[in-house]
């Protein structure tokens, strides 16, 4: 009975940790998971392992994760293509080598931020208005528009180094976000 309760609790807490929306909450759930794990080890007559799990899982790694979370700076890129009904690997692969990968490498190597890329087929203006991305790549026909904030230091760097990041850039247009909102109203 006790065994069943512990094991089910473990699975439930692990699910909480994985599916929670907030990273910080996930870390706390992970600590609770370690505590339950230590209890399980104790139940299986391994007190040595239980002590190690409690000390490292609850103490060290939780604090370490919290500190790391504070330090990671994520640069959020959104790729918009309204003409695609459903995104699949081929669509992503078609822009992967020419666009996304060089951009990621630039962000990682030169800017030292963590790139995070999402793909959508929602209308670009809607994405611009509603969602808070650092940078938006919008593909419209043959042209690629890059939207970003003019005051963003990383975005400025991307624009300044665009000819080294993307070898073939005659189809690329850069739009700063403030202009966009004006244009959107005008339309």
């Amino acid at each position: 009975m006790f065994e069943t309760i512990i094991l089910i609790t473990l699975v439930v807490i692990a699910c909480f940790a994985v599916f929670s929306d907030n990273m910080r909450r996930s870390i706390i759930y992970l600590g609770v998971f370690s505590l339950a794990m230590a209890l399980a080890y104790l139940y299986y007559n391994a007190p040595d392992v239980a002590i190690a799990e409690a000390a490292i899982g609850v103490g060290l790694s939780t604090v370490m994760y919290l500190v790391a979370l504070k330090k990671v700076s994520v640069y959020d890129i959104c790729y918009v293509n309204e003409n695609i009904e459903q995104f699949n690997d081929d669509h992503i692969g078609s822009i992967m080598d020419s666009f996304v990968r060089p951009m990621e490498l630039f962000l990682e190597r030169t800017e030292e931020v963590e790139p995070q890329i999402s793909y959508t087929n929602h209308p670009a203006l809607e994405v611009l208005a509603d969602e808070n991305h650092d940078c938006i790549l919008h593909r419209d026909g043959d042209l690629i528009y890059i939207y970003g904030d003019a005051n963003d230091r990383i975005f400025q760097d991307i624009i300044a180094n665009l000819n080294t990041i993307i070898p073939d850039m005659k189809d690329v247009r850069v739009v700063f976000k403030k202009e966009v909102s004006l244009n959107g109203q005008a339309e």
Partner: protein
Amino acid sequence: MARQSNRYIHILRIVLAVVGAAVMLFVYLNHSEKLNTPLMDFFTDDFLAQTGADNAVAAIYLNYRVFDTLFEALMLMVSVMEVINVSWANKHADRYQFEEDDMYYKNNSELVARMVGIVYPFVILLGLYIIANGHVSPGGGFQGGAILATALISRYLVYPNFDLDLHIIEKMEKILFLFIVLTPVLYVFMQIQPDNTVISHQVYMVFMNTLIGLKVFSGLSIIFYRFVFYEGADNTFIDR
């Protein structure tokens, strides 16, 4: 073309995994030999008289299979050296100087600071207890060292400054590792023992646990402080 070869490599990997699993299952299912428990009997029959430990786990990791412990200690030391020398921050060490005092001290949560301040000495006490009683009760050098490191980290929560000299701790860890190798080599392998009694064995156990505990403590605190103060974005403490 590149995508084609990628697919072939993918299929090859799957085939290899399936073949490996099949071989494993075949060997496992065809293994019908039934053994007694000679190893368990050897380890658990008379460990108190042979090794001086009341705790069978301590008897195994400090006497019967002390070789494993040596390599575990080596592994921790290598990872600490890796963190220090190969880490990303090493290229930028000039950019990440020690933080100024008191800069973010006031922004810390008062509740956390006070509670941790109360708990802190007890955590140290528990760590020392677990190290010293490693051969009697569950625990031992590694666990006690981890708890001591946790105490140091909670000190960082109370008062986040950097007045530790990591180089001294790093050197201390290497010297401790030397002693960790030396002690069992002399005592267990070469049998240079003052006396073949339980008391002598127990002294050896406590000594080894203390060494391991201090080494794990210094290793984990180096890793933690290294991560906290050198790694990551340069606006580290602004949004605290």
